[in-house]
């Protein structure tokens, strides 16, 4: 039982739900009914016990059936409220509750929709209000514009009226002007007519007057001259003849002609001046135009036509220059034409330049931000780089300088440098050593020569002394009987002396050797032991012909030659003044003086 209740109602409730929805969606016409019924239900509930209650004890079943019916109509056909007991007053609770639940659901839904609808309604009303306001505003505007329009219409009408009146005015004025002009014209004509008439009258009167004067034979009209004067030019007056008339004419034409000639001359002068100016201008123009032409020839192809023109025209210009002096019509035309053309070209050129200049300016103005910036940046970058390089270079240079100045820097480079220096030093020393060696060898050779020479000398001396000894011995022997003993003792002494001299020589040579090494140039001669046997170095040198024998004679000879040459030079300089050099007389004067001085000086020496 229970399962049936549970299973079926669910299925039914599902279907019921859908059905209710459908009914809610589709059964709009019956909605009102529903509402009524729904509203009527609680109402009836509230007034349940009081007035005409829906359900009473008596009518339960009809009520149930009615409710079922109603539920059916609401689409809740599956739910069927049944009496718990047929004919009993109780209700089976489950279907009734289901039905109630459904109804409550429906009610809630309806309330929701109602709320929404109310909201919508509110919105609608507000929008409506807005619309109404808008409408009224627009209506006002319309009103206003209509009023305005009418006003404008009015003014237009008035203006038109004015125009009309003005036009009429203008017309009348024009008429007036016409009239006045007519009047003026008529007056003018009348005036001129009158004037003419008056003038005629006056002339007539004048005629009359003159006639009268002639007729009256005015006695007073007279000239009273003491004696007649001669003409100012001294000539006598002529009779009026045809010849005189002709001569007058001739004179007149002569003066006219001379005037014209004068004016023509002045014009010719002016013309010549102008021609000169023109020619110069033309020349300058050609000069100015020609380089441009060549450049433009290279530059643009569209100028070729112009080029041809200009070439032809240049020729024309040349020819016109030739014919400039012949002031014939043709030449003039040519000249003016060529000038005109060149002028045009110059103008074009100027315009082009102008446009170029303006373009350049524009470009500068427009591209100041774009193109030059790139190049500028590039350039800047390049320059920066360069500056950097330079800085580095300077830095390294500074470093090197520092290193050179300060020896107290890092050991490696110092060692290296020291090595370098020592190496160099070594090289130099080696070189010096080699030289020294050579010198030493030379000295050795010389020493050898010396010693040999000394030995030779010693031997000679010895031989000489031996000779002398022998001679003395012989003498002594000749005088004394002990000749043999005497010879023996003298030879001993001599030998001892010679033995002693040997080591001394050696010592001196060793002493001189370091001195020689210290200075290469000085020939410090070994100090000779002041012995009678060893000769002096100068003697030695002389004997070896190492020192030139006599210096002073040669010197004197040069002096003499100079002295004998200078006097004649001074003589020359004294006789004739020194030829002015291109540098100027002033500069030569001191030199002359000096020569004189030297000359005199040497003259004196020469004399002495």
């Amino acid at each position, binding site marked *: 039982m229970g399962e049936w209740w549970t299973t079926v109602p669910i299925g039914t409730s599902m279907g019921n739900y859908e059905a209710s929805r459908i009914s809610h969606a589709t059964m709009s016409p019956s909605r009102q009914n529903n509402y009524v019924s729904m509203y009527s239900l609680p109402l009836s509930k509230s007034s349940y016990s009081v007035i005409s209650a829906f359900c009473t004890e008596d009518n339960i079943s009809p009520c149930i059936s009615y409710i079922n019916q109603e539920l059916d109509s609401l689409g809740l056909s599956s739910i069927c409220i049944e009496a718990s007991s047929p004919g009993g007053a109780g209700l089976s609770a489950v279907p009734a509750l289901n039905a109630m639940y459904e109804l409550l659901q429906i009610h809630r839904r309806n309330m929701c929709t109602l709320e929404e609808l109310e909201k919508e309604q509110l919105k609608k009303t507000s929008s409506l209000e807005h619309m109404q306001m808008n409408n009224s505003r627009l209506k006002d505007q319309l009103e206003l514009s209509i009023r305005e329009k009418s006003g404008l219409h009015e003014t237009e009408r008035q203006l038109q009226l004015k125009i009309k009146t003005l036009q009429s005015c203008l017309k009348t004025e024009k008429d007036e002007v016409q009239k006045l002009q007519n009047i003026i014209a008529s007056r003018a004509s009348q005036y001129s007519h009158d*004037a*003419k008439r008056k*003038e*005629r009258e006056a*002339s007539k009167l*004048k005629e009359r*007057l*003159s006639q009268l*004067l002639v007729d009256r034979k*005015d*006695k*007073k*009209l*007279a*000239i*009273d*001259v*003491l*004696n*007649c*004067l*001669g*003409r*100012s*030019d001294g000539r006598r*007056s*002529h009779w*009026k003849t045809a010849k*005189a*008339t002709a001569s*007058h*004419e001739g*004179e*007149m*034409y002569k*003066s*006219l002609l001379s*005037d014209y000639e*004068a*004016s023509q001359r002045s*014009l010719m002068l002016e013309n010549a001046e102008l021609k000169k100016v023109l020619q110069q201008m033309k020349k300058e123009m050609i000069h100015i135009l020609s380089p441009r032409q060549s450049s433009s020839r290279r530059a643009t192809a569209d100028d070729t036509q112009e080029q041809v023109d200009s070439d032809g025209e240049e020729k024309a210009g040349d020819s016109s220059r030739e014919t400039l002096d012949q002031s014939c019509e043709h030449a003039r035309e040519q000249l003016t034409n060529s000038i005109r053309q060149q002028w045009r070209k110059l103008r074009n050129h100027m315009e082009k330049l102008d446009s170029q200049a303006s373009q350049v300016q524009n470009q500068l103005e427009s591209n100041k931000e774009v193109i030059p910036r790139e190049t500028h940046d590039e350039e800047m970058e390049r320059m920066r780089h360069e500056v950097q390089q330079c800085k580095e270079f300077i830095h390294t240079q500074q470093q090197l300088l520092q290193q050179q100045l300060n020896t107290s820097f890092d050991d490696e480079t110092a060692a290296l440098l020291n090595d370098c220096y020592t190496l160099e030093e070594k090289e130099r020393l080696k070189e010096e050593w080699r030289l020294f060696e050579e010198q030493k060898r030379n000295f050795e050779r010389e020493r050898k020569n010396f010693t040999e020479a000394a030995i030779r000398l010693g031997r000679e001396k010895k031989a000489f002394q031996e000779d002398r000894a022998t001679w003395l011995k012989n003498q002594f022997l000749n005088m004394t009987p002990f000749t043999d003993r005497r010879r023996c003792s003298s030879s001993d002494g001599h030998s001892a002396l010679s033995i002693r001299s040997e080591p001394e020589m050696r010592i001196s040579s060793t002493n001189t050797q370091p001195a020689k090494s210290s200075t290469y140039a000085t020939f410090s001669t070994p100090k000779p032991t002041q012995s009678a046997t060893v000769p002096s170095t100068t003697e030695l040198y002389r004997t070896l012909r190492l020192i030139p024998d006599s210096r002073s004679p040669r010197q004197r000879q040069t002096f003499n030659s100079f002295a004998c040459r200078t006097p004649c030079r001074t003589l020359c300089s004294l006789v004739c003044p020194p030829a002015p050099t291109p540098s100027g007389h002033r500069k030569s004067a001191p030199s002359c003086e000096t020569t004189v001085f030297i000359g005199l000086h040497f003259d004196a020496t020469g004399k002495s």
Partner: protein
Amino acid sequence: MNFSEVFKQSNQLCKVSPDGKYLATCVQYRLVVRDMSTLQILQLYTCLDQISHMDWSSDSLFILCAMYKRGLVQVWSLEQPDWHCKIDEGSIGLLSSRWSPDGRHILNTTEFHLRITVWSLCTKAVSYIKYPKACQKGIDFSRDGCYMALAERRDCKDYVSVFVCDDWHLLRHFETETQDLGGLEWSPNGCVLAVWDSCLEYKVLLYSLDGRLLSTYSAYEWSLGVKTVTWSPSSQFLAIGSYDEKVRVLNHITWKKITQFEHPATINNTKAVVYKEVERRPAVGADDLSLHNITIGTTLFNTQSKYEICPPPVQIPVVKPDPDRANPKIGVSTLAFSSDSRYLATKNDNMASVVWVWDMQNMSLEAVLEQCSAVRCFQWDPRRPRLALCTGNSKLYLWSPAGCVSVEVPTEGGFQVQSLNWHCSGDSLILLVSKYHLLGTKCVQKHYFKTL
């Protein structure tokens, strides 16, 4: 600057002989001739009546004295004081009298311009020229004295007759295209005759000596036209002053306008120098030494006015003319070229106190002289570019390209310089001054002679 003593004269009749040796002045009915260097009286002639016109003959030998009221002309000889000549025009009356260029004929215009009588002093012959036109300048002799142009009016048409002065032979006679001929003038070289219409129409006609019309110039129509016409001494320019306050300069080749000089009320031209005369009341007892912008021996005189240079723009006083009156005081009425044709001085009538000097080389305004009072007269030095002017007060003003100076004329009792005349050498200047007596309307006029 030295001033001579004051000599009496009347009717502003005071003229230097063409050769510059003598000075003739008229005092009432007497003619006084003085030596120019010593100012001693050489001759004294007595005429029959008060002299109204006096003129030297071209050879400086004869002096003509006309007495228009009596219709008489008396001629005096300088060489022969006893010689006399009297011409009586009779009852017709005399309007003007003048010498012919040869100095042997006298041309008398009779009243009403009825005729011109030509009297010969050589033969006593008389000849008449009829129908001379009464106009501004109806008769002109060419500079060389060969020809005379005469404006005539016959049958309401204008004619020009060209006479040979030698024997008064009529050389040419032609009709001019003018409504009402206003004047004529020979060019200085004597080959072109400028003819202009009266002020009602702007028209200038240029005729050759043989009567051919060379050119016609008209600047505008429908308004008052030419006021004055002047040739430059070089015959190169023809300056036309007109009622529109402008001067138009024509050239002698095409006879077209080269330039026009306007006389604006405000000078903005920065190149022109504007000299403004400033009057100073002399302080009592103060030793007022002159303060001119150039000092040419002016320290001698106490001056009450000096020139100041005004920077542009300069406003010039303008008098608006009365449009209802005839010959309105407007437009350029006086033109004068300097002797070297370099400068042109002009005066505009509605700016009466201003003289304008124009440079004819640059065709531009050179200087403006703004005086305190209206300019009476100005004249160029015949030798140098130097302009002398007077304004009817006791001062003389001189302008030269170097500057401007005002000179007080040393007189007791303020004489007023009415007119001035340069001596032909340009060394001296004759000032015609007047002094009004307190009571009478009669004025005693004197002249100053002064050596610069």
